[in-house]
């Protein structure tokens, strides 16, 4: 019997930004499998030219509402690299702590609001308010915690205010930190409850594996989001951040004309699962326990497990956040105001966004005016890998109903937690 599978998802829902899925197969022969991105490009690299060094992180923060702290830090680190600006140990610790707030907020939003509906067979979190009120309340509390975290340390929930080259424009009070530590401790039972809840429906996560190169920051002895070099599961030798352009290797694909990234293979993946695969041995005890609950181990190459890795990281940032606050309070917070004298130079910065490694680089003239910028965004780096996953997955599931295939592909896109409005380099294509 002749069977045509024709799937066209216009604007995948419950992801940040716009993406389309197109699949067509006739009698088991695949004619086309495509992951497309019709997002309106915004041209940030062009827009920052002519702007002052001290305004750059304010502008590029607006690349993405969900990763605004990460974008600010990538810019701040690149500016510091370009101008030879030193930062204190206190600043470095506070930055790591601040950055954790965004991981918490983004992971809670993604796992709780965007992915959970798939695992429970509904269209959004709205019906879950009635059917699973306790789980929804837990997600809300954790999401709010992430927001409070950024508010206390970065001055605001979205688009941070106090993150500057050289340090912070405002420090939290010691009392504030002491009280916030209690909030973090109180969040542990919520994280455990969320893990139990996801575990109870984890059999809905498809079992699909494709050997993949994973890329993330690596820093000796740390499960790092902020410091370190560029590591890959395909090499023992990490690369300095300044050489990021030779890692991302952006190229125009002959079959899709979209810019893709590749290092050792024809595609690579970034994000929570990449960080886990490179750094899992440095997770703290509670986070390690949650990974074990799900049977998540180093070397996992099931992209759907990225959601589980995010859950593990949500635990890790709370656990390590508590330690960092202790260290900061023991040392005592010293008032510091960044003093920067701009100078000419080029610099690069890399930071782990919740959805993967992010690279910024800028060139400044002697007056500190930005002359050139290059930004490579995590979702951009995952693009080729999503396409490769599609190509491996579709033949395996072609005998299922169109609805099933569609759902599995949408879930795959969602698993990468794409942040498409971030993607400064996405080519904007609508295949018809």
């Amino acid at each position, binding site marked *: 019997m002749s069977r045509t599978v024709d799937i066209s998802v216009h604007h995948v829902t419950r992801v940040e930004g716009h993406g389309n899925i197109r699949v067509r197969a006739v009698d088991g022969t695949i004619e086309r499998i495509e992951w497309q991105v019709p997002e309106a490009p915004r041209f940030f690299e062009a827009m920052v030219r002519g*702007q002052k060094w001290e305004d750059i992180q304010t502008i590029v923060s607006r690349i993405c509402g969900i990763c605004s702290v990460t974008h600010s830090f990538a810019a701040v680190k690149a500016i510091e690299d370009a101008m030879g600006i030193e930062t204190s140990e206190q600043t470095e610790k506070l930055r790591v702590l601040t950055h954790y707030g965004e991981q918490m907020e983004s992971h809670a939003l993604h796992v709780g609001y965007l992915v959970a509906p798939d695992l429970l067979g509904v*269209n959004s979190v709205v019906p879950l308010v009635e059917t699973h009120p306790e789980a929804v309340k837990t997600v809300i509390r954790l999401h709010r915690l992430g927001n409070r975290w950024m508010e206390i340390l970065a001055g605001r929930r979205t688009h941070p205010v106090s993150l500057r080259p050289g340090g912070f424009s405002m420090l939290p009070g010691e009392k504030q930190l002491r009280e916030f530590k209690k909030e973090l401790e109180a969040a542990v039972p919520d994280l455990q409850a969320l893990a139990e809840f996801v575990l109870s429906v984890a059999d809905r996560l498809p079992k699909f594996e494709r050997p993949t190169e994973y890329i993330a920051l690596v820093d000796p002895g740390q499960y790092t989001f902020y410091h370190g070099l560029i590591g890959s599961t395909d090499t023992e030798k990490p690369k300095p951040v300044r050489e990021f352009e030779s890692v991302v290797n952006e190229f125009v694909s002959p079959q899709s004309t979209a810019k893709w990234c590749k290092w050792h293979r024809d595609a690579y993946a970034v994000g929570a699962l990449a960080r886990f695969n490179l750094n899992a041995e440095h997770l703290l005890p509670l986070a390690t326990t949650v990974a074990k609950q799900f049977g998540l181990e180093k070397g996992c190459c099931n992209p759907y497990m990225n959601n589980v890795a995010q859950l593990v990281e949500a635990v890790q940032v709370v656990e390590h956040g508590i330690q960092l606050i202790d260290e900061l309070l023991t040392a005592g917070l010293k008032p510091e105001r960044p003093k920067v004298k701009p100078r000419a130079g080029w610099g690069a910065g890399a930071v782990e966004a919740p959805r993967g490694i992010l690279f910024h680089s800028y060139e400044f003239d002697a007056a500190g005016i930005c002359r050139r910028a290059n930004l490579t965004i995590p979702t951009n780096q995952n693009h080729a890998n999503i396409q490769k996953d599609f190509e491996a997955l579709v033949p395996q599931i072609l005998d299922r109903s169109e609805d099933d295939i569609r759902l599995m592909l949408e879930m795959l896109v969602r698993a990468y937690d794409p942040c498409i409005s971030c993607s400064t380099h996405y080519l904007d294509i609508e295949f018809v």
Partner: protein
Amino acid sequence: MSKPTVAIFDFACCEGCQLQIVNLEEELLDLISVVQPVEWREAMSDKADGDFDIAIVEGSITRPEDEDRVREIRKRCKILIALGACATFGGVNKLKNKFTMDDVRKCVYGDAADMPHLSTAPTKSVCEVVQVDYRVEGCPIDAGEFTYIVRCLAMGTDPVIPSYPVCVECKLRENVCRFEYGELCLGPVTRAGCNACCPSAGAWCFGCRGFVDDPNVNAAKDVLEKYGLTIEDLNSRMELFNYGQEPAENVKNG
């Protein structure tokens, strides 16, 4: 009475203003009890059929096809709310308009710049393309102000948005003036309503809520002069979120 239907759409933006709606947390559940969301791509898989009562639109218009799309949305709704700086006056997206479109395409895409799907037009706000009934200012919006405006709408009253500058709120929070730190702050000419959140976190005001109505130019000039700064300095920083805005001229000529 049936609940008014609401659809949320986005154009070129960071989706940070929608995120503020998500950030309402439990309050969002209260909101859903008085309005019926029928389409919200970022949070729901449902898509609206036909018309709806309220459209909330985030982002700027940067391509001709997006102009058509926002006009279509306008036709389908009774009330249109522009959400955030990108939608109300263009925000950072307007920095693109400082350059030719050829130049920005080449800068970002290099050799691939001439591909037809990369065409881009100068940024317009939603307000410049269709008639907008309510504006929620800011980058990002203030979640409290958003719920206030929705509440007013539900009660059939007109929201009152501050028509005084950020300095007023900043003084109430007893902050030391940013000019005292040798910084150029946009508080004197920017519309309040954010509770001076940036000066309160140790930074200057970035002007993300746009010019206040009839900015008090003489007062702004006095402040600038006192600290050895000029209106040109102020306009150059105001460019970040307000490139090409008319009131800049008013300040210059005042």
